[in-house]
Each structure stands twice: as structure tokens, then as C-alpha cells.
């Protein structure tokens, strides 16, 4: 899967849950539960992912080449060997950026409606 030849826009729009997971991986490699916690914190608890849903998304991210298993792990004292850490790929980063741009455009477009401006 050569990233250069792939168009990030082909994967858009992302589902909200997938978007949140990608955002959670943007700043650091994280394992499953860490992703759940990060999403929850970022959305003030509004988005509570279950493990069943999360790993379905992770499977998609891995097979679409948006994320990979991270080769680096924390020190043994803080690590649970059952865990897998995930890392955003450059392509995944492009996709999430494209999604942010798409959402921004949508919001911009909405702002041009005068009656909605205050809301």
C-alpha cells in the first residue's frame, strides 16, 4: 500500500467513532484502553467507546493502512504484555487531516446562513 498513490479523500467521510480514534492516535502511540480513555476525555465523556466497537475500528484502520502496530513499547514495569500499541501512519495522518478540512468546510458553509450564526 504505497501511501503516495492513494487518495485520502477516497476514505471520507469517516464515521465519528473512527475520526475520534484517529485523533486519539495523532499525538501518541496508544493501546486500546488508552484510546477509549483519550476519546472520552476529549469529548467530555460524550463519546464512550466499548471494546467491541473499538477493535472493529482498529481492524479497519490496520487493513486500510491508516494505523500500524507500534514497534516501541513502554518500559517493562508499566507494560502489560497482552497489550498492543497502535501508531498512526503518514497516510492515516493525511486522512484525518483531510477529514478535519472537510468538517471545517462544512462548518464554514453552515456559518454563511445568517439565521444560524448565533446558534
Amino acid at each position: 500500500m504505497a501511501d503516495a498513490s492513494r487518495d485520502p479523500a477516497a476514505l471520507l467521510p469517516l464515521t465519528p467513532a473512527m475520526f475520534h480514534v484517529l485523533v486519539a492516535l495523532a499525538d501518541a502511540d496508544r493501546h486500546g484502553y488508552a484510546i477509549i480513555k483519550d476519546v472520552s476525555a476529549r469529548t467530555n465523556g460524550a463519546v464512550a467507546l466499548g471494546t467491541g466497537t473499538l477493535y472493529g475500528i482498529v481492524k479497519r484502520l490496520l487493513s486500510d493502512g491508516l494505523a500500524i502496530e507500534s514497534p516501541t513499547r513502554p518500559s517493562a514495569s508499566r507494560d502489560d504484555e497482552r497489550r498492543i500499541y497502535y501508531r498512526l501512519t503518514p497516510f492515516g495522518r493525511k486522512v484525518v487531516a483531510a477529514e478535519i478540512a472537510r468538517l471545517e468546510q462544512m462548518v464554514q458553509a453552515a456559518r454563511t446562513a445568517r439565521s444560524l450564526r448565533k446558534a
Partner: protein
Amino acid sequence: MNRLLRFLVRLLPAEFRGDFGRSIAADLDERRAAGDRMSLLRRELPGLLAAVVREHASAFQQDLKHALRLMKRTPGFTALAVLMLALGTGVNVAMFSVIDAVLLRSPFKDPSRLVEVHQLSDGTPSALEPEAFAKLAASAHPFASLAAYDFSTHLLTGSGDPRSVPLECVSASMFAVLGADPIHGRWFGADDDRPGASPTIVLGFELWQELGGSTSIVGTPLRINHTPVTVVGVMPKGFGGPLSRPRTRVAGWVPLGRPIAGGGHDGCASPFRVNAFARLQDGVTIDAARGRLSGFGLLALDDHIFDRVGTPLYSLTAAVACVLLIACFNVGGLQLERMLARRHEMAIRTALGASRGRLTRQTLTENLVLGLAGASAGVVATWLTLRALVSLLPANLPRINEIQLNVRALAAALGAALVASVIASAFPVRQLRHIRPGSDIAGGARAGRRLDSWTRRGLVVAEVALSVLVLIGAGLMIQSFLTLRPSQPGFEAARKTLGRVRLPKAPPAEGLQFAEALMERLKSAPGIRDAGVSTILPMRGLSSHQAYEVNGALRPINTYRVSAGYFELMRIALVAGRTITEEDTAGAPPVVVVNQAFADRLQQDGQGLGDWIPVKATPRSADAAVPRQIVGVVANTRSTPQHTRIVEEAFVPFAQQPTSAFFVVAESRGGSDAAVAAELRAAVRTLRPDLVVDELEAMTVMLSRGVEHWRFGAWLLGIFAALAVLLAAVGLMTTMAWWVRQRSREVGVRLALGAGRGEIARLVLRQGLTLAGAGIALGCLAAAGVTRYMALWIYGVTPLDPTTFAACALGMLAVALVAAYLPARNATSVDPVVALRSE
């Protein structure tokens, strides 16, 4: 981790679990440590459940795509497999539809609680004497309800042509016993079922349709036996009374306690015996009920129907099951071959982490797709051919008109497809266990060949055995049919039409007068060459015995009372003496003509042509015997379709022993049977407008109907056997072709070392015939074990008939020879150089 959640994780597909299972466990543990159990369950349960469904669906979708791609890539294999499975499931769906209608479906509520009640005298069951029924009804019996019925032909007038209608006279309680609701109006009440009540009738669906099918018929009168009878209800389609007899489709029901007599017909007044049905009380088993009765026997209603049609239907079901099994084995064998060819691919996939479960599931999915495609094609084929199949069935099969493709048949097709996929998958899946990524990736498709070639050969042996089994069953059936087929019944049936005339409550002399007037009228009718009457007819299954005193002992002899010219009309050959003529009137000396069998017996006893023998009109009659002179001997005729045994028979002049009920036979001048039937009906009506002709049919129809039971068995089993043999031959051919491909190297070496092409062909043929021989031997052994269950249904051959067994074995061997010939010929065209280089 919560136990329920852990269980759900385990339900995830193996691959998904392999990738994420441990991570999920770690997450759940951490979550549990952080929060309380209930909130954990609440938050995780829906997501995990959804994941289980989603991941399995996605895996199935992938397998499906893979299977379809594979099917497209090998169109020849796909077409062959689908065709074979279509044959296998198609015949099963068709048979299921028949069994469903005839044996499984019941128009009654809770049919398992219905029993037929018999009176036992010396342990022999019989219908009940009316007094016995009354006694039983008054006793503390174990039945929730109990009802009696009798059967009688009634005369319907005033609604189109006057005609006979078969009616059942039933107790009012029959409704409660059977538990079937009228679609219009009501069933009888106890008030209708007593002497002096105003007469009522409940119509069967067909008669109701004939009478216009209007609901306003309820409450209006019909004229039955010249008596006005009020219609009170109409029963639903398919309801045919307790036994649902189709030959004499019961047209309606009248109360047994209020017989409809009139115009010389007595309806069911004063029945000699009645049939009784009962519904067992809740919680009482049939055995417990038997224990509470003395002098009465019980038979489950289902068993009653089963006894009559069970053996043939279950034999046929066993045959179609064999056909399906052979088709499955064939597909299984082909799949095994493909699995071996894909061993390399499978080994690579295993090495890449695909679990055996995953590969198993994929194989199952492939076969499921094949099975479903086959079943769909089979259902379509059945739908197209079901009418033809039903026309092969005997017309007296209960509920035959209800046979149709319904939801249950489709469910059966689905079931057959599932069974077929599992069986066809079993062999290739077993193969998966032997995949060793290391050696298989290196060795290609060749490794492990020996082991699987045994499985494959075993399958072929089983296929041949099963087809020989069906073939032998069909052989026995065909032999029975050929034996019973009325090819030479001893008389000529062509161009003859028969009908039965009954003069209600008429003295014998009136019967004679009417018969003579009728014959005179018929003989002068333009389309009729000749006509005659007889009290019974050959090959009709009816008999009438008179007692002949031979050497002081009374011998019951089947006796016909025939009009002058009867033998000439029926083309029954005269052997000696003379036939019955116009001179044999009531006042003339009493005479008798005997058949050859009886003449032979008489000769042994020292009597013959010209001698006088005393005859009693009924075997038990207290009358003195009347001496009759033997004036002629005629050739033997077959008296019944059920056997070919020649019985001793005698013929006395109708004029000397007339009756008021007889058969009339008319021979056409070459016109249609229908035209003769119309002339017969018209002649009777001109003479007596109140009379009707019953049982009108061409004599050829009567002959073929007598053996339809065997004809349908021979046809259907024959067709199933042909399918079985065809499928087994395909199995043998594909297996031998595979064997040859596997051995192309060996063949190449042999050819290179100077072996002749004939030698190679013989090698392949020998291998094929060895497999076929083993299958044939096994099949014969299996047949020897099971054909005795057909004993009730076959005639003229023993279940172990050596000729049939030998013929079937040889036939199968011949087919096997042809099936092995093509691969053998291919083997001889192997180019040694190519074969040796390719491996």
C-alpha cells in the same frame, strides 16, 4: 473479567480473537479494576454482542466472495457439482412433498390422539357390530369422544343429472373426534342425529363446488334418495372424513342416527357393522387406553394410513436418500481432489496464520453455496416435474390432491442442502488435518496422496454400493410389475366399457327383466356392437362364491352369473362343450360352464363335461343344492389384479339366477369410450329415469388401475435407480480420471520401460473394476439385509431373488466398465517424455 463478557469474547471469530483477543482481555481487566461490575457490563455488553455478529458476518462475506470466485474460476466443476446436487435434492424435495401430503399433514386437530376402534373376536380385529358400539359408548371408556360411521352410496336428484354420491353416515360426535371446522354453516348436533329428526347433510368441498359453491346453499334442501335433506354446513377443501379416501371421494356427511331412506335406497339404515373412531382423553396413552378396554382393539389413525401406504413411501424415501447421498459423495470426492490440488495454497495460508477453523469454515461455505445452488435448481426442477410425478402415483393414495410444493418442502430443500454441504465438506476438511506447511509448500500437490486416494476410493465404493441397493429395489419392483401386468388376462379389454347398475329393493325377476331390456336397447344402439351383463368381472378384485358339492364336500367356487353371449363378448376362448346361450332360460335345465382350472379339479374327482354337480347359491345357505349340468369348459381368466394365481371359477346363466345389481359391458364399434359411456347412460335413463350407472369406465382403464400400485413403484424406483447409477458412474469416472492424473508419472515410466498401451489401459480398467466390484458386493450385501422390508409390496419374486441380484450386479458392472473406459483410454495417450519431465 466478567464471565459473560469472557464468553462473548470467545464467540468472536478465531482470527479476530487471535488479533485482538488478548488486548480486549487486558482492556476489560483494567476497566473492571477502575469501575464497578454492573457499569462494565452495561457499557461493554452491547458493543461486544454487536462485534460478534459483525465479525462473523464479515468473515462469512469474505468466504462467500472467495467461494464465488472459485466457482467462477472452475465452471466445469461448479456445473457438475450443482447438477448432481440438484438431482439429489430435487428428488428428495419431490418425495418429501408426497410424504408431507400423504403421511405427515393431517386435516384433523391433534391427529396423534385419534384412534380407530376395532372389535376383537378371538384376537382378530374387525369393524364393530352396532350393538357392540352402543355398549362401548355407554361404558366408562378412555375416550374424550367416540364416533361411528358407515359408508353408503346415495342417489342425488334434482341438481343436474341424477347421480350416485358416496356419503358417510357419521355420529354427530365425529366432529368432536376429528376436530375439523366447517367453512360455512355448522356440523350436526345431537338433535340431528336421532330417529325422526329432520334430515340434514354437511357437504364436502368438491360437491359444494359442483353445486355452485355459493354460501347461500346452507339452509336449502337437496334431494337425496328422493328425500328433501337440508344442507347445514360445508367442510373445507382437503377434508375427506376419517380415512380421507380419494378413490371414492366422500361427497358429504349425513347423521348415522337419522338414515336417509327413500325411493328404494336405505342410506345407512340398519348397518351390518360400523367403523368407529375415537379421540383419546388428554393424558391417556394408547397403551393405557387398550388396557382399559376388553374385547376392543385400538389402532392409531396415523398407523392406519401408514400401514396402507407406509411401505411404498418409505422405500421410495430410502431410495431418494441414497440418490442424495451418492450426489454428496461425488461432490465430496471432487472437493477432496480440489483440496489436494490446493494443498499448496492451503499450506501457504496456514503458514501465514490462517487457522484450521478458518479453512474449515471456508470449505463449508464453498459447499454451502454449491448445496444451495443445487437445491435451488432442484426445487425449480421439482416444481416443473411435480405434476408428472403425481400422475405416476396411484390415484388411491390418500390426500394425493394435496401434494404441492409448499413452505415445508422448501424447508426440506434447505435442510437437504445443509446436509449435503456438511457431507460434501467432511472429506476435504478431514484433509486439512494433514496439511504440514513445511513439507507441503515444498512438495506441492503430490504429498499425502496415498492416504487420500483411499478416502476417494472408499467414496466410490460407497456410491456404487448405494446405487446397487437402489437398483435391486427397483429390479424387484419392476419384476413384480411385469409379473402382474395384465398383458394376458385371458380376455380382451379393448373397446369395452363397463358400468354398474343397481335396482334398489327390486326382486331378482325385475333385475332380469331390466337387464334383458337394457341389452336389447344397447345392441340396437348405433355405436355399440355387442353388450352383456355379469355379476362380477375378471380383474376387478370382486368375488362371489357359491358352494359346489364335489365328492360329498362343499367347495366354495368363485361364480359369475353371465348373460348369453358373455364369453363371445369378452373373447374368452371355449375349450370344450358349449357356452351359455339364449336357450339357457329360467325354465331350461340348470347348467354351468367352468373354467379350465375348475375342470382340471373336477377331472381329478372323476367328473367332467355332461356330469351334474349340486350347487348351493351361497356357501352357507340352508337351501337344498340345485344340480347343474356342466355344459362347457372355457379358458382361465385372471380374477384379480393383486395376484396371478388362477382360481377355480364357474359361470351360471344370469337368466337362471338373476340379481338386481350387476355389471353391464358394452363393446364399441370403434367409437370413443366416452361415446359408449354416454350411450350406456342414455339407455339406462330411457328405461328407468331414476336409475344411474355407477363406476363407468373403459375396461382398459380398469386393467391398468389394478396394477397402478406396482406401476408407480416400478417407474419411480426405476427412475431413482437410473439417477443413482448415473451419479455413481460419474463418481467412478471422475475418480479414475483423477487416479490416472495422479499416476501419470508411473504410467510414463512404464511406457518408457516398454509397457504396451493395452497393458496400461488394462491397469486402469482393473483398478476401476476392482472398486466397482467391491461396491457391488457391498451393495448386494446391504440389499440382502433390507429388501425384506419390501416383501409386502413385491409380487412373484422373493426379496432375495438371485436373478434380480445377479442382473443388477452385472448391469452395474457393465456401467462401471464404460465409466472406467474413458479414463483408461486417456491413460494410454500419456506422453512418457512429458509425464516424466512434468514432475
